[in-house]
């Protein structure tokens, strides 16, 4: 891929084992959570006569609100992936993860997570077309601030989605645009993240839940931390560059 060639770095093989361990731990955690959630849901749901009935009970396939559940789940998933991608974006610029994670991996995750989050956010919007109780039209989904449902915060979410598309596209046209343009467009991702956060907080159905509030504000605080760290690194780099220029002159 051209982006790796641009980075001019080889894959750090020595860090693969560390990454393997991290992935293994996360996988085990996810499997544990999945087993726990599955067990709880199995206890909660009625005894099913067939696997399809079990799936029907589990995912509420016959429920009138099925697309609303899908939209909420994909919206939360899209936000979490976008948050991770934003953190990795700051990490690439500030090199905060360079001591334990390969720079090429960080860049790869950043790009891949952006694409995944776009997919989930797209799903989040598209399924609302099929919602039976309070459906949104295609124009309401595409054009900001005309939605019947919380128009302002829905509009903010639509604008954040467009900004995310714009920023993600620049991964693939990086060789055609200047580095300065790439960076300026990438700064828009911060606005996109903030827009997505407030869209989730003020247009999201689940924002009233305590754990969702904790999730939103916790992720926001982590982004603030990484942003401040990145700004400090940029400031230090500039001051060092200025000092070296003064010495030369």
């Amino acid at each position, binding site marked *: *891929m051209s982006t790796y060639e641009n980075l001019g770095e080889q*894959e750090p093989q020595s860090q*693969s084992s560390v990454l393997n361990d991290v*992935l293994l731990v*996360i*996988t085990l955690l*996810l499997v544990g*959570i*999945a087993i726990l*959630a599955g067990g709880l*849901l199995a206890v*909660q*749901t009625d005894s099913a006569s067939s696997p399809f009935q079990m799936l029907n009970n*589990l*995912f*509420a396939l016959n*429920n009138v*609100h*099925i697309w609303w*559940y*899908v939209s*909420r*789940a*994909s919206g*939360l*998933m899209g936000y*979490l*992936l976008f948050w991770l991608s934003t953190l990795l974006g700051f990490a690439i610029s500030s090199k905060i993860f360079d001591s334990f994670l390969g720079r090429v*991996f960080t860049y*790869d*995750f950043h790009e*891949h*997570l952006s694409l*995944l989050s776009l997919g*989930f956010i797209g799903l989040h919007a598209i399924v609302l077309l099929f919602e039976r109780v309070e459906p949104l039209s295609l124009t309401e989904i595409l054009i900001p601030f005309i939605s019947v449902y919380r128009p302002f915060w829905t509009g903010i979410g639509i604008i954040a989605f467009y900004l995310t598309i714009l920023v993600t596209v620049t991964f693939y046209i990086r060789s055609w645009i200047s580095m300065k343009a790439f960076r300026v467009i990438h700064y828009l991702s911060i606005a996109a993240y903030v827009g997505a956060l407030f869209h989730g907080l003020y247009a999201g159905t*689940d924002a009233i839940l305590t754990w969702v509030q904790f999730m939103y504000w916790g992720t926001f605080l982590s982004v603030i931390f990484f942003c401040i760290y990145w700004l400090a690194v940029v400031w230090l780099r500039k001051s060092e560059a200025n000092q070296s220029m003064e010495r030369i002159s």
Partner: protein
Amino acid sequence: MNMYRKLLRIWIAFTSFISFMIGWAFLAQTSETETVVNPNTGMTGTLVLPPIPSVDGISSQNLETDSVQMFTFNQSTQTQQMFAPSLRTGGS
């Protein structure tokens, strides 16, 4: 892109999808209940929405006109009083 990186990408996509499915099931199971707060005591409780009554038990025989209770319209014998407010101006 080497195989290791491809596997990582597939792993991330797979775990994201599984997380989404877990979230979907979680929301589908928990959204049927709604938490309510008593304004007097400040205590929270869970309001369980009652199921919608089924119409499966109604057979076609029950829908015959003989068994259906017909509504009768009882005309009110009371005279309707007109409350016309008497508007008076006190003058200026």
